[in-house]
C-alpha cells in the first residue's frame, strides 16, 4: 500500500466522522454580525428606556421586580420590537452565511446532524422563553436579562455535542454571565449587551479564524 493511499484513507475517515456527527457548517462571521446587531439593539433600547421614562425606571426600582406591567407597558412594546428586529436579523444572517458554508463544506444544511442540533437547542430555549413570558405577564421584569442569558447558555451547551466545542464554552460563559446578572439587578441591559453582543463577537471571530477560511 503506498503512502498516498494511506493519507487519503485517513483524510476520508476524518472528514466522514466529522460530517456525520457534527454540524461543521456554522458560520463564525454570522456570530460576529449577530453580536454587532445586538450591540446596536442594546444602544437603541438604552435610548428608548432612558429617554422615555426617566423618573421611575432607576436601577433599584427595576430590580425590585414588583412593578406592575401597566406602569410602562408602552416601553415594553418598543423594547420587544427592538429585540425582535435583532433576533430576526441575526437568524436571517446566520441562515444565509451557514447555507453558503455548508455548500462549501459539502454538508447538507437540513440533515440528521442539523436536526439534532436544532432539537437540543430548542428545548432549553423554548422552555426559557415561555418561562420568561409568564414572569413578564406577572410583572417580574427583573428576570428577563438573567433568565434569557442562562437559558440561551444552556441551549448552547446542550447543542454543542453536535458542533464545534467552542460553542460549549460560549454557552458556559453565557450561563455564568446570567448568574452574575441575577445578583446585580438593574443592569440587565448591560449584561445583555455583553452576553449577546460582546461574547458573540469574540466567539464569532474565534470561529471565523479557526474554521471559516
Amino acid at each position: 500500500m503506498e503512502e498516498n493511499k494511506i493519507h487519503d484513507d485517513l483524510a476520508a475517515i476524518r472528514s466522514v466522522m466529522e460530517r456525520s456527527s457534527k454540524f461543521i457548517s456554522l458560520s463564525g462571521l454570522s456570530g460576529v454580525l449577530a453580536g454587532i446587531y445586538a450591540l446596536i439593539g442594546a444602544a437603541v433600547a438604552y435610548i428608548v428606556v432612558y429617554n422615555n421614562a426617566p423618573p421611575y425606571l432607576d436601577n433599584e426600582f427595576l430590580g425590585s421586580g414588583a412593578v406592575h406591567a401597566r406602569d410602562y407597558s408602552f416601553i415594553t412594546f418598543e423594547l420587544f420590537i427592538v429585540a425582535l428586529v435583532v433576533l430576526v436579523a441575526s437568524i436571517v444572517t446566520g441562515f444565509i452565511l451557514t447555507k453558503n458554508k455548508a455548500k462549501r463544506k459539502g454538508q447538507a444544511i437540513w440533515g440528521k446532524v442539523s436536526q439534532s442540533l436544532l432539537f437540543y437547542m430548542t428545548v432549553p430555549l423554548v422552555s426559557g422563553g415561555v418561562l420568561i413570558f409568564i414572569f413578564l405577564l406577572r410583572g417580574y421584569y427583573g428576570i428577563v436579562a438573567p433568565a434569557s442569558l442562562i437559558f440561551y447558555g444552556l441551549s448552547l451547551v446542550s447543542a454543542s455535542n453536535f458542533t464545534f466545542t467552542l460553542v460549549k464554552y460560549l454557552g458556559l460563559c453565557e450561563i455564568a454571565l446570567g448568574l452574575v446578572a441575577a445578583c446585580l439587578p438593574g443592569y440587565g441591559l448591560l449584561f445583555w449587551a455583553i452576553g449577546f453582543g460582546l461574547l458573540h463577537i469574540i466567539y464569532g471571530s474565534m470561529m471565523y479564524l479557526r474554521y471559516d477560511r
Partner: protein
Amino acid sequence: MKVPFEKLDKAFENRLRLQIMSVLMVNDRYDFNSLKELLETTDGNLASHLKGLEKEDYIVVHKAFLGRKPNTTYEATEKGKEAFRQHLDALEKLIKQQKIN
C-alpha cells in the same frame, strides 16, 4: 522492521466501506438515505458494500417502518468496531514506518 500488511483488514480496502464504518463508529445508528447523501454514492453501490460489511458481521441491519415508508438503519457490532480500531492501528504503524525509511 517488517511492514504489518497482514494486519490491514481486507474488508476495509474499499474506500466506501471504510467510510461507512467511520460513520458508524461515531453514530449509534445511521439510516440508508442519510448515508447515501453523506457519502455521495448510488443506491446499488452503497447497498452492495453494506451487504459486504454485514456478511463479515461488522454491522447489523435494523428494518423498520416510518408510517408506510421502509426505514433501514445500520449499527456497528463490537466485532466491527474492534476490526476498525485494529485497521487504524495498522495504518498508523505503516505511516510511522514510512517516516523512518
